[in-house]
């Protein structure tokens, strides 16, 4: 057997780093995300030259410059649209979109929803820091209400998006959430996003320590994380809490938080099923302000996954079927048309 000699040399995270100096602010959550992406890439089974990272504009959109793959730093909000064309033309490429809450949900919101409904087989990494970092600190479409920023000195009055609900509304086939401060979970989610065939929407909570420091502290800090987060695992009951003593039960369509013990066992709890769209809708709506009494913990992990044909596959099939039925195009026939006449 000669298979060993044909195998490409195994790559490491280092092979995915470029010689460009990384220019995010020290302490920015983007560093961790970059590190996790570089760690995951060697293991996804795609040759480096077949990986393309496309970004829009914003702090996160510097990402392609730091990845030794093919990449394009495009224009504000349009990464998803650029990726659509690339993927339609070159289905064999592994296309990753790096965008942010401003880039992907504000100026580029239209492309994001259309990308999701068409279900190109790409991975959308939406770095959500709930602020505009590159333009130096204005509120974003995911900033909480009453946010005081440079452009909202009296507090913002916009209601924020729930990004996952938006993705669900746009018929996304893979919806997940992770965070910069949980490398293990983030690596797992990146891998899952890659494995999903279709448009994977992965929201990543990312701390902007300059303009919105601590926005997700309550989910990331040791002291509160266990109580305030809920890590979803397929086929497992929804359990959380420092002592893993709390769970979520379904009372009809209504989720309720229960204490385990005293007549409530894990068997009574809601069992996570990524393929259940109704349950996914409820999980996505566990989005209440952690400052409110009686709020739910914030779920992380894969909320929903389903299978639907990808745009680029359907496009290719249509072309192949037409050629199979009619034969390849003949330029001379086309130019000649059906009715001609001759002048001597």
């Amino acid at each position: 057997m000669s298979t060993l000699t044909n195998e490409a040399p195994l790559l490491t995270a280092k092979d995915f780093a470029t010689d460009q100096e990384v220019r995010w602010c020290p302490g920015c959550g983007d560093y961790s995300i970059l590190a996790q992406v570089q760690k995951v890439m060697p293991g996804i089974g795609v040759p480096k030259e077949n990986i393309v990272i496309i970004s829009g504009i914003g702090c996160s959109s510097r990402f392609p410059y730091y990845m030794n793959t093919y990449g394009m730093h495009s224009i504000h909000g349009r990464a998803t649209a650029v990726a659509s064309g690339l993927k339609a033309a070159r289905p064999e490429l592994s296309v990753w979109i790096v965008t942010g809450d401003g880039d992907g949900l504000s100026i580029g919101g239209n492309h994001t929803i259309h990308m999701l409904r068409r279900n190109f087989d790409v991975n959308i990494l939406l770095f959500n820091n709930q602020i505009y970092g590159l333009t130096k600190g204005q509120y974003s479409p995911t900033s909480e209400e009453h946010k005081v920023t440079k452009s909202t000195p009296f507090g913002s009055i916009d209601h924020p998006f729930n990004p996952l609900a938006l993705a669900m509304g746009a018929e996304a086939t893979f919806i997940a959430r992770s965070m910069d401060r949980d490398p293990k979970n983030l690596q797992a989610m990146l891998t899952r996003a890659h494995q999903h065939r279709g448009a994977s929407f992965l929201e990543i909570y990312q701390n902007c320590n300059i303009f919105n420091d601590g926005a997700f502290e309550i989910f990331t800090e040791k002291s509160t994380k266990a109580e305030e987060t809920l890590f979803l695992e397929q086929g497992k009951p929804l359990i959380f809490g420092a002592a893993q003593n709390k769970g979520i039960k379904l009372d009809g369509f209504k989720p309720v938080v229960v204490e385990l013990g005293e007549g409530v066992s894990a068997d009574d709890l809601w069992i996570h099923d990524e393929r259940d769209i109704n349950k996914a809708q409820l999980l996505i709506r566990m989005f209440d302000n952690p400052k409110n009494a009686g709020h739910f913990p914030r779920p992380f992990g894969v909320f929903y996954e389903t299978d639907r044909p990808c745009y680029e596959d359907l496009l290719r099939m249509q072309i192949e079927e037409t050629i199979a039925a009619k034969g390849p195009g003949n330029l001379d026939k086309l130019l000649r048309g059906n009715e001609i006449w001759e002048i001597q």
Partner: protein
Amino acid sequence: MEKQQVLLNDVVIKFAGDSGDGMQLTGSQFTNNTALLGIDLATFPDFPAEIRAPIGTVPGVSGFQVHFSSERVYTPGDICDVLVAMNAAALKVNLRNLKPGGKIVVNTEGFDARNLRLANYADGISPLEDGSLNSYEVIAIDVTKLTREALKEFADLGMKEKDRAKNMFVLGFLYWMYNRDLDNTINFLTDKFSKKPTILQSNIKVLQAGFNYGDTTETFSTTYTVEKAKLPAGKYRSIMGNQALSYGLIAAGEKSGLPIFLGSYPITPASDILHELSKYKTFGIRTFQAEDEIAAITSTIGAAYGGSLGITTTSGPGMALKAEAMGLAVMLEIPLVIVNIQRGGPSTGLPTKTEQSDLMQAYYGRNGECPMPVIASSTPSDCFDVAYEAVRIAVQHMTPIILLSDGYIANGAEPWKFPTSAELQPIDVSFKTTLDEGEVKFQPYKRDEKLVRPWAVPGTPGFEHRIGGLEKQDITGNINYEPENHQHMVNTRQAKVDKIADYIPLQQLDSGPEKGKVLVVGWGSTYGAIKSAVMELQAKGHAVSHAHIRYIRPFPKNLGEMLKNFDHVLVPEINNGQLVRILRDQYFVDAKAYNKIMGVPITKTELVLEIEKML
């Protein structure tokens, strides 16, 4: 009664009726019939702005003008010899373009009290009866009644369906009037209604009834013949502008070996290119109806980055939305063909009317110093060559290019001496897949003698690289903010576009002496009108010449010299003076403008008057 035959040189017919009267079909059938006889022609359809304007009203009038001749034809004609008016509104809209003494073929049923009221004829007095048409030859036919009579035996057909065939009666009558046979239309109907035998039979019946009506009715004593034109020898077909443009793109895809990707958002009058290219899956063409104009161009940029022949098609408002992405394409230095089928502006403007008012937008309408080549088509069939050239320039110079056409060209038709694929120059293009001698590392912005950077596409091992919209260092393509580098890159991008002038033909005079009194300079769809006007004046012995510019940015290298050989330069445009300003700016020439911006083409007649003022 003995029927008389008259030989004519040149005829202009306008078919006009309500949008539902099938005048576009009638006109195009008559056109094909004419073309197949080897008669030269040009057409111009005139659509209502609303899809379904109220029936019988002036805004609902749809028209189709065809100019045919045994001489060469360059325009659809300034004024008509024959007006077909299916209702009162159609007469009202088109009468002013009928020449004195011209013929009016009317459907009398379209002049009943209701139609007169809808067309705003005061007090319901019919122009057919009040003597106002005395200076014309009116041929009044109750087309509706005769159509119904012809279809008496078609019991399955409802009245509505029967009435729908009345355009065939008119067409048949005109075929009789111009000594034609019915074969091509019968073939067309057979094809179209192959699955609806009753509709097919009824249409053929009515077509023949119209023909026979002319033949047997005593009142009509004269038929007319136009002989075939002296066109260059070869095989011809009839072609419309947007169709030719689509074919040019397909041909360029085949001859460059690049798969076509079209990203487009529907917009009048460009949508037909999206429709046309979407048909040709057998050529492997990928068409993508994007969510908006911005996605249309940016998806195309993505496809071009991946090695496709990237094309995006739109009209003026769409160009405005695409501007930022064009800037990205300039920075990325990747090939892209951006097609603007111009229409009346600004804003939504006059979507179905024609204008040449986006030239400045094409030239300058982006942020930053953002040079892009611009090329323009001048007639329907010229769209083929121009599209082909646009692709050649884009892929061989690694640049986005703007192709300007307009609604007048897009929907106009003319005979086309089509090429064979073997006659088309191959378009050489290659991806970078190996390092040249002496190269140790791939440098995405290292340039060749044309100042063109290499095209390395994803999937090529060892050539991984990042590109983007930030200013970049020459050679390496790394982000770079240094002052000298920016100056250098701005200059280099300009020089790269300027250098295209070395790879395009010199400007030729279309007609006239090399030195003389007046040079008329045009671009785009004014071609036919300028050519006809200039030829008329040349025939009278005047030293007038005509140059029509296809390559607008950069201009052909000899254009400046050419302008200086004339006492006067006149630049007619369907805008407020755009090319004329660019010419003055680049060549310090005292060019005069002639502008009209009414949503309609410039006519030969008005140009003759204008040029005469300079003689």
